[in-house]
């Protein structure tokens, strides 16, 4: 039956506006409608999700729309959740449409309740129970209460592996993360809390344990999980069928290999006769995939197909290679570099646009960006280009971090007291990638003005050029470094050349004019030197160095190695040469946060030509931060000889022309800090000292207090705890260290810190 609608009347509206109902209703006045149209209208109104119930009726020829509005949620109250943080819970609820201001759909609430219970169950909290209640607040608004009782976690009382002949339960259970023993430390590290995901993970580990030892046909027939009536203990039974052991048979390649077979065979770790191992297969396919990726086949697929022949108990392996289309990179984009310029990033990328894609180049470039030290994190992802299947765009997403320090007014380094003045040292000056160091500092001992500028990419091929100027006047009157002062002014230029992926060579020239003077309580060595060599030295130094580096990060690295060897030859008023070697090697242990760091610094310098002794102000110093922590800065070395009658008695040192330093550190993740890239803590053992191959002449009426020669038993050792933190103001370094073989006259310092200098 159909009728002509003269008017539409809406009843039951409380807070929804009539307008919303009208524009959702497919019928308007003066339409003629039949039953079918009316039911569609009802469905349409219901689809808006605003109404619990919709009834359409006739009053004469007036269409009556009677709706019952769904209440809207005024607030959600969650009680009793400790395992799942409140914000994640609320996020889950909002995603499901249960949030303040939204309309309450009871079905979603029940669905949410079941979902929560499933989450708790998968965490082994079987006795958890959740009940929800809805409180009417009037004006069709409701308060939703969710009361969670998380119950206790069922502990695994036993894991029983059934059917294992060749390996006993104990060896197999070692591979598991779950265990059926409470943790050794008050159950703190206990892993006997049952969780379904972890059991799945353990079953995979068990399967790969067998597959890595030749059991090709190993299978897990079934697993039973049962719980004690009081829901406190879980029993896991795993029924396995080991099958027998196989060795590798012969290896062959199928499909379009694209690289020559001999190279492919060298990449593959499968040798016939060796015990079959699944991880060898995976490693081999990965090596092949990488090799093909380097040849531009970014989408290559390689499957290792083991074929068991029971007769001779061997497994032949066929590597089926499908190179897929050769892939090309169309565009490379960068995101997140709000201060660093595009070119500073792009010049690090070895993959070019409009060129064959190389997976190696793309991932190497991520590493190079990370090593710049400008970014907290670098992620790379590739997206295929629409309707051109063999082209892809690469996007590097970086997150910038402070890459330098601005210590404008106040700095403090224990060895120099309070430092006044301003210094700006930026490794990424205004995002240009250039390194700028401008500093004006005065402290109790020295005034220091310096300016240095280095462009790492003077040429696009990576030739760097840098120059600097400095004015330094020091007065070591009562500091630990002996009683003399030097004033110097100089400048220079240096160039750096890449000679391989990993290493660079640099050359430089530096001109300097330096003057020395001493005081009445200066030691005999200084007075004798200045008397014989003079007190004004204009010199030119030619320096050359070699550096090889593949640390994994520019700042606070945790893996990789770094070596630098340099030779400086100085001519002019003083002639001497200096040889220096610095090496660092880091071994990541479990995850990247734990690693072992070995470092060493060796130095040898000597005078040449007209100069008899190496100028004492050019000596190497040892002790303090960045050297042997636990000893006061620059206090390790041969004592100076006090001149007769001078009142100075504490034995300062002049350092030495030989430097031997080394340190071993265990880097561990800093507790309570989640961003491990900004902070690094470590236990360390430092060792070091300076020596004099031959003592300085002290004039005739005095006997020298120094003993020449390098005697490694004189090395000083210390052990302690160090922390480095990259603050926006600059790198902050702390260390507490206790000397291990302190000799009398050594000056020790338990706590040392410094702001603005990275070591």
């Amino acid at each position, binding site marked *: 039956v159909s009728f002509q609608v003269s008017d539409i009347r809406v009843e039951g509206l409380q807070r929804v506006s009539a307008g919303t109902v009208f524009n959702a209703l497919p019928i308007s006045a003066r339409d003629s409608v039949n039953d079918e149209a009316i039911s569609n209208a009802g469905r349409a109104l219901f689809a808006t999700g605003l109404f619990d119930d919709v009834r359409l009726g006739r009053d004469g020829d007036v269409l009556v729309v009677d709706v019952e509005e769904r209440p809207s949620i005024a607030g959600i109250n969650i009680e009793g959740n400790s395992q799942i943080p409140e914000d994640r819970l609320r996020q889950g609820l909002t995603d499901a449409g249960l949030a303040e201001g939204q309309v309450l759909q009871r079905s979603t609430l029940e669905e949410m309740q079941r979902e929560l219970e499933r989450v708790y169950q998968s965490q082994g909290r079987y006795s958890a129970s959740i009940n929800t209640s809805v409180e009417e607040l009037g004006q069709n608004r409701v308060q939703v209460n969710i009361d969670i009782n998380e119950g206790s976690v069922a502990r695994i009382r036993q894991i029983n592996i059934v059917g294992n002949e060749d390996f006993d339960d104990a060896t197999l259970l070692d591979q598991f993360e779950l265990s059926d023993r409470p943790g050794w430390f008050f159950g703190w590290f206990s892993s006997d809390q049952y969780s379904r995901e972890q059991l799945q993970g353990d079953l995979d580990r068990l399967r790969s344990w067998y597959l890595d030892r030749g059991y090709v046909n190993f299978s897990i027939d079934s697993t039973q999980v049962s719980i004690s009536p009081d829901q406190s203990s879980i029993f896991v039974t795993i029924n396995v069928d080991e099958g027998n052991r196989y060795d590798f048979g012969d290896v062959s390649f199928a499909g379009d290999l694209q690289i020559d077979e001999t190279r492919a065979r*060298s*990449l593959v770790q499968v040798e016939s006769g060796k015990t079959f191992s699944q991880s060898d297969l995976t*490693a081999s396919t*990965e*090596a092949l995939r990488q*090799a093909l990726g*380097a*040849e*531009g086949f970014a989408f290559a697929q390689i499957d290792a197909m083991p074929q068991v022949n029971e007769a001779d108990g061997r497994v032949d392996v066929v590597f089926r290679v499908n190179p897929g*289309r*050769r892939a*090309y990179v169309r565009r490379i984009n960068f995101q997140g570099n709000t201060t660093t310029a595009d070119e500073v990033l792009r010049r690090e990328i*070895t*993959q*070019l646009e*409009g*060129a*064959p*894609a*190389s997976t*190696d*180049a793309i991932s*190497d470039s991520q*590493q*190079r960006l990370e090593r*710049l*030290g400008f970014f907290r994190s670098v992620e790379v992802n590739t997206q295929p280009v629409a309707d051109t299947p*063999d*082209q892809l765009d690469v996007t590097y997403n970086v997150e910038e971090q402070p890459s330098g320090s601005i210590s404008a007014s106040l700095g403090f380094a224990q060895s120099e007291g309070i430092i006044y003045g301003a210094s700006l040292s930026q*490794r990424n000056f205004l995002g240009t990638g250039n*390194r700028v160091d401008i500093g004006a500092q005065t402290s109790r001992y020295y005034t220091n003005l310096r300016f*240095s500028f*280095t462009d*790492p990419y003077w040429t696009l*091929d*990576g030739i*760097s050029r*840098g*120059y*600097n100027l*400095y004015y330094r006047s020091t007065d070591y009157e009562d500091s630990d470094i002996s009683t003399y002062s030097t004033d110097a002014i100089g400048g*220079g*230029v*240096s160039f*750096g*050349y*890449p000679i391989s*992926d*990993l290493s*660079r060579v*640099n050359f430089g020239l530096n001109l*300097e004019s330096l003057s020395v003077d001493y005081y009445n309580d200066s030691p005999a060595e200084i007075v004798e030197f200045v008397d014989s060599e003079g007190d004004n030295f204009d010199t030119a*130094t030619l320096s050359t160095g070699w550096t090889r580096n*593949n*640390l*994994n990060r520019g700042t606070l*690295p945790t893996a990789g190695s*770094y070596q*630098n060897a*340099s030779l400086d030859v100085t001519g002019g008023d003083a002639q001497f040469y200096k040889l220096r070697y610095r090496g660092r090697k880091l071994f990541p242990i479990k995850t990247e946060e734990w690693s072992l760091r070995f470092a060493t610094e060796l130095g040898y310098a000597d005078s040449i030509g007209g100069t008899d002794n190496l100028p004492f102000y050019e000596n190497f110093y040892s002790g303090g931060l960045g050297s042997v922590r636990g000893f006061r800065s620059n206090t390790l070395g041969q004592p100076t000889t006090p001149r007769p009658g001078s009142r100075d008695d504490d034995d300062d040192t002049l350092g030495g022309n030989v430097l031997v330093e080394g340190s071993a550190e265990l880097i561990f993740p800093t507790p309570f800090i989640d961003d491990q890239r900004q902070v690094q803590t470590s236990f360390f053992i430092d060792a070091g000292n300076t020596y004099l191959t031959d003592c300085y002449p002290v004039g005739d009426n005095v006997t020298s207090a120094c003993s020449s020669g390098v005697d490694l038993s004189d090395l000083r050792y210390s052990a302690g705890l160090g922390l480095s933190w990259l603050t926006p103001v600059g790198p902050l370094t702390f260390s507490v260290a206790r000397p291990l073989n302190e000799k009398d006259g050594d000056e020790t310092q338990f706590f040392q810190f410094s702001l603005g200098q990275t070591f």
Partner: protein
Amino acid sequence: CVYKRDLTQGNLITEDMVSQLQPGMSRQQVVGVMGSPLLRDAFDAANWDYVYWHEAADGDITEKQVSLTFRGDRLSNIATQGNIEAQVEGSDGAAPSSAGARAMPPPGFEDNNFEPIGE
């Protein structure tokens, strides 16, 4: 003695690819053989230029060009330039990356290791 990387641009073109091209092929068939052209020439849609340009570290350059003209969707003319037979290098032709050896992550320099003199 400065270390320079190989530089590759454009599509990798091999002799047997070019030999598979004959007039009358559709654009789709051409893409099946040559891949899609990297060099986009917006001025003249009837013409596809496949370019291969490889400059080795020591400076010697290998160039190949295949310019194809289409009438509508049909390939009408094939013109080649440069030594099509030359061996085609993959990307930067770096030393073969044996999976095992690369324990440490690949190259870079720490604190962009040019020590300003006099520090």
